[in-house]
C-alpha cells in the first residue's frame, strides 16, 4: 500500500507500481483508494486490474480508461452520437507465454469491464469458449447478447511475438457512426537491414490517465456488481460448454 498525496494505491503488480508512480502528478481533492489486488479491496476503494472481480469490490473501473481514445469512444456511445449500437468487437492480445491468469486479469476482464461500462442494457445470453491456440489455455472467445440486441464479441489471446507488447482493438458499429479504436497502435517503426522491423510504442502513460479519469469523473465509476454477475454466467458457460441465459 502506498500513499501519495490523497491517493492510496493497493497492490503489488505492474499496474499498482505504475499507478503509484503516476499518483504524484494527478491531484485529487479528497482521499481515494485504488486497489489492484483481489484480496484487499477496502470499503470505498475502486477496484481495477486483477481486483475487478473481487467479491469485496463495490465499484470498479476498467484500466482501459487509461487510454484517451477509449474514454472518448465510451462517451460518444453513451451520449448517443454513434446512434443505435449494433455491435462491439473487442480484441486484446498479450505476448505469447502470458499465463492463463494474466490473460484473464490483464486482458479479458478489463475488456469486459469496459464493454459493460458502456452498455447498460442487461446481458441476456453468454457463451464462452477457451482455446489452446499456441499454448495451453492461451485464448478466450466470448459472445454476449444484450437485451437491446447489441452483440458483444470479445477475443483475448496470448499470440503477440515476444517484445511486441500488447495489442488492443475495439470496433463499435452503430447506425450513425462506426468507431475503430486501436489505442496501442501509436508507434514509430524501426526498419533494419539485418533484422525484422520493430514498432516502438509511444502512447501516453495509461496509469496516469486512469487516475485522471477517476479524479475527473467520480460519478461515472460503476458498481462492480454487474460485472461479477456476468462473470459468474461466463464461468458457468465455460464449465458447461453451453450458452448461459444470464
Amino acid at each position, binding site marked *: 500500500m502506498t500513499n501519495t498525496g490523497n491517493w492510496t494505491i493497493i497492490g503489488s503488480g505492474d499496474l499498482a507500481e505504475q499507478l503509484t508512480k503516476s499518483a504524484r502528478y494527478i491531484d485529487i481533492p479528497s482521499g481515494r483508494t485504488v486497489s489492484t489486488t483481489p484480496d484487499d479491496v477496502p470499503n470505498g476503494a475502486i477496484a481495477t486490474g486483477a481486483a475487478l472481480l473481487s467479491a469485496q469490490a463495490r465499484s470498479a473501473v476498467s484500466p482501459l480508461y487509461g487510454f484517451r481514445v477509449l474514454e472518448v469512444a465510451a462517451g460518444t456511445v453513451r451520449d448517443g452520437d454513434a*446512434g*443505435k449500437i*449494433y*455491435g462491439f*468487437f473487442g*480484441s486484446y492480445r498479450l505476448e505469447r507465454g502470458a499465463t492463463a491468469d494474466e490473460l484473464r486479469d490483464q486482458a479479458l476482464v478489463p475488456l469486459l469491464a469496459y464493454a459493460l461500462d458502456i452498455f447498460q442494457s442487461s446481458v441476456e*445470453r453468454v*457463451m464462452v*469458449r477457451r*482455446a*489452446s*491456440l*499456441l499454448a495451453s489455455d492461451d*485464448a478466450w*472467445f466470448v*459472445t454476449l*447478447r444484450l437485451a437491446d*440486441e447489441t*452483440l458483444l*464479441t470479445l*477475443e483475448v*489471446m496470448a*499470440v503477440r511475438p515476444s517484445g511486441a507488447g500488447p495489442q488492443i482493438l475495439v*470496433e463499435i*458499429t*452503430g*447506425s*450513425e*457512426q*462506426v468507431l*475503430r479504436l486501436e489505442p496501442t497502435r501509436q508507434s514509430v517503426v524501426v526498419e533494419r537491414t539485418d533484422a525484422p522491423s520493430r514498432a516502438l510504442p509511444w502512447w501516453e502513460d495509461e496509469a496516469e490517465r486512469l487516475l485522471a479519469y477517476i479524479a475527473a469523473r467520480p460519478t461515472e465509476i460503476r458498481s462492480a456488481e454487474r460485472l461479477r454477475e456476468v462473470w459468474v454466467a461466463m464461468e458457468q458457460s465455460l464449465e458447461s*460448454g*453451453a*450458452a448461459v*441465459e444470464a
Partner: protein
Amino acid sequence: MAEERRRLRAGVIGTGTIAFSAHLPAFQKLRDEIELVAVADVRAEAVQTAAEMYGVETHYTDYQEMLRRERLDFVDICTPEFLHPEQTEAAAQAGVHVLCEKPMAASVTGADRMIRACEAAGVKLMIAHSRRFTGRYMQIRAAIERGEIGEVRYVRENERRPLTMYDQLDLAATYWEPEGGKPWVQMAGYTHGAAMTNAVHETDLARWFVGRNPTSVYAEARMTQADSEIPDMLTYTVEFEGGAIAAAEVVNHLPRGYPYFHMMEVIGTEGRIQAIDPEQSPSTVAHASGMTQQQNFPVLLHVDEAYVREIRAFAEAVRNDTEPVLSAHEARGAIELSVGAVLSYKRGEPVSLPLPEGVAVDD
C-alpha cells in the same frame, strides 16, 4: 500452326446485381474463349438490357427454354440461393455443366441434391466462391502453403458494409423483388440472411485456410434495420478438429460514409498474416467534410479479375475434362458451416458439426 480452340457456349441464369457487376463483364473479357450465347431471367427488362449491353444474341424469361434450345456447354447460375438446386438439376438433366454462384444452396439437403444431380448426369459442378480467386486470399493461402506461418491456429475475418454498397455502381438491374416493394435479400422466405449472403465467404475461407473439418459453431445474430425480416449481422466462433478456431463478425448496413471494411487475420504457430482494407488504402483524400479513401477495387472485395479467373478455371475444367479446382464437396462444407451458424443463433446454443443428415434450418 496451333489448332484453334473451339469457343465454349455459355448461358447465364439470373441477370441481377452480381451478373451485371461481375459475371457479364467477366464474360466480355473472356470472349475469345467463351461465347456467351444466351441469358435468362424472369425479369424481362433486366434480361433484355443484359443482352443488349453485352451483345448476347438470345435472351429468355424461362431458363428451361434456354437449356432446351441453346446446346450450352455450361451455364452460370446467378440467381438467389434457394433456386440453385432446382436450376442445377435442370441443367444437369440437360447435360449442361454448372457453374453456380455462392451460397451453393439454402440448405445442406439442397447442396446434396446439386451434387447428386451432377454426378448422375456426369456433368461438372463448381460453386463460384469468388474469394478463392481473389488476389488477397490467394496470397494468404499461398503463404500458408509455403509454410510461412506454420500450422494455422486462428482465422479472424471481420467484414462490414455500408448501407448502399452497390449504389455507386449504378447497375442496370438491382435486386429482384419477388413480391414487389422489398428485395429478396431482406425477406425471410427467400434467404437466411448474413450467414448465407456474405458469411458463406467467411465460412468457406476459414475452412480453406485451416484445412481441417469444423467440429462446432456458436453464433449470435440480429437485425439492424427496422424493416428487416432476417439477420443482417452475425458474429460466430467455430472450433476445428485439432483445436484451431475461426471467428467472424459480419455487419451489412452501416452508415453511408463507411468504407467497405475488411479485416482478415490468420495466426499460425510461427507467425501471422493480416490484411485490412481501409488501412491499406492506396488513396486518401482530405476535404472539407472529412477524408475519403479509395481502394484499387470498386465495390466488391474481389472484383474483377476474380470473376475472370473463376469462370476461366471452370471453363478449362469443362474443356479439358478435369476436376474443377474447387470441388462441390468443399462448397458443401461452407454451406454446412453457415447452416450450423444459423441453427446456433436460432437455438441459442452451440451446434456440433457435421450436422445430422437431413437437418433443416427451421428444426
